[in-house]
């Protein structure tokens, strides 16, 4: 059955990591989805929302609802941006006429691994990645969307992939949006702890469902000359079996 999926690409991914969005498209097409990318989408509003500027975030939420109004299903390769839509739009738009619509759209919006495992019911997407990988559980996916096992289920089915468990895999990497620069020293200290946990596993790659965490972790790893590299889950799943 051909599924129609509307793709929601986080703004920072659109601008900084187009490859990850492309990989998301690749995976979704491989399992038979028809993809639509509404071109008027911008940011979900989370940076403003998290910094306290709800009046600035609200029009973004309204724009998002307009852009994805007719979407059957919205899929997003980010636990954090999905959380913004599902968990925070209802509160942000609580007083307005769009409250019900926000709740309804939240129920149709899914993070990629969640969509694959829970909605489509697939764990083997035909990927191969002959490398050692450790998994970092990004906070929003883990604690707001309750995605504990879904990404791991997908990783376990990737041919040739050696999954290595990380100590404190569920401890925050320290990104936290504007926190990363407002409290740079704390953010870097948290990132350094994470980098140490990654190093202990000896894995070649660290993966997660959020590129925002990975950009920060990559920044820390890059500076420390560590061996491990970051890779988004979608980019692993996009690697096809030869």
């Amino acid at each position, binding site marked *: 059955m051909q599924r129609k999926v509307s793709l929601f690409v986080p703004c920072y991914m659109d601008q900084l990591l*187009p490859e990850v969005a492309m990989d998301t498209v690749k995976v979704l097409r491989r399992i038979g989805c028809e993809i639509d990318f509404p071109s008027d989408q911008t940011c979900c509003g989370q940076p403003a929302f998290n910094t306290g500027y709800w009046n600035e975030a609200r029009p973004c939420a309204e724009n998002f609802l307009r852009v994805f109004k007719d979407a059957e299903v919205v899929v997003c390769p980010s636990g954090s941006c999905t959380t913004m839509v599902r968990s925070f739009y209802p509160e942000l738009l609580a007083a307005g006429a769009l409250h019900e619509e926000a709740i309804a759209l939240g129920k149709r919006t899914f993070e990629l691994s969640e969509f694959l495992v829970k909605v489509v019911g697939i764990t083997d997407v035909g990927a191969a990645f002959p490398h050692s990988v450790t998994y970092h559980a990004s906070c929003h996916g883990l604690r707001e969307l309750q995605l504990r096992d879904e990404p791991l289920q997908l990783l376990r089915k990737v041919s040739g992939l050696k999954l290595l468990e990380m100590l404190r895999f569920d401890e925050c990497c320290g990104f936290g949006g504007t926190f990363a*620069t407002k409290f740079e020293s704390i953010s870097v200290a948290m990132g350094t702890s994470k980098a140490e946990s990654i190093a202990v596993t000896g894995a070649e790659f660290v993966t997660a469902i959020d590129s925002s965490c990975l950009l920060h972790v990559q920044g820390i790893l890059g500076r420390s000359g560590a061996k491990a590299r970051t890779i988004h889950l979608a980019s692993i799943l996009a690697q096809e079996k030869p």
Partner: protein
Amino acid sequence: MSYAAQKFLEDAAVKSADLAHREVIRRALDSYDAAHLRGRSRIHDWEAARQRCQEIKREAINHLDRYLLQFEEKVIAHGGHVFWAADAQEACDYISNLATSRGVRTVVKSKSMVTEEIQLAPALEKAGITVWETDLGEYIVQLRNEPPYHIVTPAMHLNRRQISELFKEKLGEEVPGDDPAELVALARRTLRRPFFSAEMGISGANFLVADSGAIAISTNEGNGRLCTSVPRIHVAVTGIEKVIPRLEDLAVLWPVLATSGTGQGITTYSTLIGGPRRPGEADGPEEFHVVLVDNGRSALLADPEQREVLHCIRCGACLNICPVFRNVGGHTYGTTYQGPIGSVLTPHLRGREFEHLSYASSLCGACTSVCPVKINLHHHLLRNRRNTAAAGDTKWSERMMFRAWRHAMLHPRIYALGGWLGRKTLRALYGLGLAGSIVDPMRVWNLRRSPLPLPKESFRSLWRKSLGRRGLGKKGLGRKDLGSNDL
């Protein structure tokens, strides 16, 4: 930026880089983590227990007026006194006056965070009264002339070597090999005398039981029982939010508090005190006073959106799991209550000067996941931030930035153009080796991180050109070099 905010940033930078400090805290918290997990596994259904605790506290807080009056009535009926203190000043004045009028010269204290909050010890000392902290951790930080580092474990930041040196300096006795048991014995010997000479004992209260007019205290060292039973006068100082409806509520609250606090099934001493000594009783104080402290709490109670913050039972679990706390430590906060609960609560209790704490979090939500009374801590941080921005307490430049940002986000072409221009500019700057320099808009990010990837084309541009029309071929538009920094 407030003085407190400036100091927080400076102290956080120092502590985050202090590896010896991190080692001490990690060691302490690793053993807590193990005990906490073990403790939780002993409770048949942890989630149900949390749910129950939340319901009890919600009921109590939503009917605080009724339960506090019921508690007061019972305490008076038992022969005790209740004083309602609107703020710290009133509470300190009442206790100082009481002490002075009763000729009190020495006070022994068991652990109480509210007394820290209202700065009771300095107030009593100003009235010429000697105050002894008798909880071991509190005694140690008192000797160091420091505030408690952590609401449950005040001396968590010290190892036995440091404590041994402190005792040698302040108590004049050397403990060979810094033996912990000997260190405890030394403190015990020293504190024995004030226990029996003090005319007043001051305690906190973990719970105020409305239906029985009793205060419930959880301790582990026995000092609490000595403070509340040996001296002639016992004063219990407590926040108004500590009331619970029924004695039977302790059946779940006591073990949940102990489990979250230290991983114990129940604390070594779980004490219920219902009033002064009655005729025929062997011990207990002649006078029993309860000081109910408001100090900003009723303002929080008036806010239906955030009143659940008053559910807190001060177990410290949110501090222990918090990655920010683990890196900056307790003293950096500069507040009575540290960690997530402190960051949520302090701006309410102490105002604007502490608003920066609501921002000093990555919003990871680990705190919320362990809170035994299910306070949605990290969402309250978001609401605090919203209130700060709405009150106009943020930087002008930031406000302007978000206004421009909103404009771009509502106009996809401006957004796309801005993104393209931004990447192009940064690429040019970084090409000149100016990453992290004073002209780099991403300077702070780049101080200790490698620069962000800056692709030539955004996803939307790629989509428009090809992806949308053709499917991805076998090779597609994929990466050049897997895992490279250019991604």
